[in-house]
């Protein structure tokens, strides 16, 4: 019982956006899908929900292929960013109309929740999509994701453009929904620090490949921030995989990745601290070194 993709490749104009990606999403968990811009997050989410054909590879839900399979697609919802630009045909559509079409197609659409969320977000549903702000459009995608009641719900940048109050509202609503229904959520976000407490599992995409897949806490336990005088830090982390270095004068701080059985030699005069998900992500996918005089 899972949503699974195997050996997914997606090529756009000769460029591999996804390269042999295999990931499995278990039911009843909240996943975080993180990666830098252009890492392939939206492409992966759209392929998982059959909204974009893969160049190679397969996607299955509970063992059944998802592509052109109505019974599998009914269990999936991909709430992606809506473009409100004038060029987009949807800009002339009213939010009310968009939600009506969604309620027609999603079998378990929750009309009462839709009304509650529209009131909570103070959304003017009679206004055209093109006239809504970026934050308001994010609210529409959140309403779609929560009201569709799909067992597997994938959200692409759900909090983009939302102010801090609305973001907090969203995290609370998501958690309430998760607690009440046990639905699986996959959330792609750049606001890692805020979303981190929700993310039980993590998938990090980097340059079209899966860099990390697993339990968030277990992943964070494999990383540490070591700081002190540069010679001590070098000695304490000798033989370890160093991902990010910061130097200020003769002081040094490094983020290290610990493979099974490896440990930091704390007999040297160094401070070892746990890292946050954002720090770990920057260490793995960032530029590597940072020096300050």
């Amino acid at each position, binding site marked *: 019982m899972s949503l699974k993709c195997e050996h997914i490749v997606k090529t756009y104009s000769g460029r591999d956006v996804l390269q042999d990606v295999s990931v499995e999403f278990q039911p009843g968990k909240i996943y975080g899908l993180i990666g830098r811009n252009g890492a392939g997050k939206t492409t992966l989410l*759209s392929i998982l*929900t*059959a*909204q*974009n*054909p893969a160049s190679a590879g397969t996607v299955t839900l509970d063992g059944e292929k998802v592509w*052109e*399979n*109505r019974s599998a*697609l*009914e269990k*999936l*919802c*991909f709430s*992606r960013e*809506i*473009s409100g630009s004038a060029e*987009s*045909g*949807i800009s002339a*559509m009213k939010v009310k109309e968009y939600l009506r*079409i*969604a309620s*027609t*197609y*999603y*079998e378990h659409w929750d009309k009462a929740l839709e009304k509650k969320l529209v009131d909570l977000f103070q959304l003017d549903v009679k206004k055209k999509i093109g006239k809504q702000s970026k934050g308001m459009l994010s609210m529409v995608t959140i309403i779609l994701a929560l009201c569709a009641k*799909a067992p597997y719900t994938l959200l692409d940048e759900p909090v983009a453009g939302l102010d801090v109050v609305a973001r907090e509202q969203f995290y609370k609503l998501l958690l309430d929904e998760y607690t009440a229904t046990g639905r699986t959520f996959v959330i792609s976000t750049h606001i890692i620090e805020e979303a981190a407490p929700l993310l039980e599992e993590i998938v990090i995409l980097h340059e079209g490949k899966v860099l990390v897949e697993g339990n968030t806490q277990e992943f964070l336990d494999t990383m540490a921030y070591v700081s002190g005088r540069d010679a001590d830090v070098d000695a304490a982390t000798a033989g370890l995989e160093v991902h990010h270095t910061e130097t200020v004068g003769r002081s040094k701080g490094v983020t290290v990745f610990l493979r099974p059985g490896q440990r930091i030699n704390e007999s040297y005069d160094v401070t070892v601290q746990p890292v946050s998900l954002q720090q770990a992500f920057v260490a793995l996918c960032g530029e590597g070194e940072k020096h300050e005089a």
Partner: protein
Amino acid sequence: MRRNLKFWTRYTWENAEIMLSLTALLGVLMLLGRTRPAWDVFAARVPYLLLMSGCFTLYLVNTSSHTLYIPLLIGMGETRRNILYGFLYYRLLAILTTLAACGLIWALIPGEISRQGLRHLPILLVAMLLLSALGSIAGTLTVRWKWVGLVALMIPSGIFGGVIGYTAVGDGTHLEKVLQVVTRLLTGTVWPLVLVTIVALAADGLLQHRVAMTQEAKI
């Protein structure tokens, strides 16, 4: 499939509102002409106005369906195959309802115009199928090349605008002349028209399938 049919049925009625508005506009222009036709003659001509508006609406809506509604429905989790079936259902429903309305009006109003109209129903069906296929082909091409869509929209809009202008500046008989020319063209080229329609429908089917199966549901 039930939800899919529900959407496309509603879509048909929503577009029928546009078609009826255009028909009303043409009808008013015809009545405002210098030589106002007798009511029974006017009523017998209404189906032609309905057909003109129907063809124009069908063409335009087919173009926008491919760029907006089909990706939107893919995004809502419907299969591409079902969406294409739904789209075909909408087109047939729109064409058959329009023709049924025309047939009914002609059957109720006696006279030469009605007799001719009823006789021409099969060829009018072919003409509507052809226009519907051409609009859909323009739509599928627009998914890949936006400028094709722009050109495809400009041509029928220009023609329809010309018809409205011609009707507005002249008396009611001008529109009748247009209709006579069109009818003569249609009845004089039945078999070539049928052949072209079959080719257009086949090309439309192939293109739709090709585009739908490779399209990303971006809105």
